[in-house]
């Protein structure tokens, strides 16, 4: 029962990932692609939590900690570059 709920959650999240990928591949300006990149990193954190639930290993959550800490570094770097800074 709970497994089926996790499957449905993973499928819906995968559809959201595909939407963000479409915006990343198409996006007219550079900032649109950066928004899609930010969304994809958060969707990836959800993927990691789902993988950890499916495998039953708590050690996989450390990767999600690293993601949540470091994923905004690239966004800040490209935003400062677009703003003529850095």
């Amino acid at each position: 029962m709970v497994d089926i709920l996790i499957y449905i959650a993973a499928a819906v999240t995968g559809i959201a990932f595909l939407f963000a990928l479409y915006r990343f591949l198409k996006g007219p300006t550079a900032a649109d692609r950066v928004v899609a990149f930010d969304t994809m990193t958060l969707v990836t954190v959800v993927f990691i939590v789902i993988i950890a639930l499916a495998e039953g290993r708590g050690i996989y959550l450390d990767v999600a900690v690293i993601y949540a800490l470091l994923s905004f570094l690239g966004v800040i770097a490209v935003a400062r570059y677009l703003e003529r800074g850095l």
Partner: protein
Amino acid sequence: MTIGGIIGGILMLSGAAFLFLAGLGLVRMPDLFNRLQAGTKATTLGTLLTLAGAACLRPDWAVKLLLIGLFILFTNPISSQVLARAAHRTGTPQAAGTVDRLAEDREKRP
């Protein structure tokens, strides 16, 4: 089949629904600032709901999941605000009918 499992599954489903709505807004919204609002706020809520659901499913991972939620809650608004400021300063095209009070103030008092 415990009560925690049912609550956790429903929380994870609602979080996935918010992520789906964020992706739909990312595709359907007309210009950058609307896409930024859809792609950042809704995604933060969806991720936090999913983490809460996982904490209901496996209560022994709750500390680590709380840490992930705190980091997301700290870092995601920062990146969103920096990106919106960069896009506004470089003159990103806006949708028709946008009321830009900040640009009007900049023109009024340089």
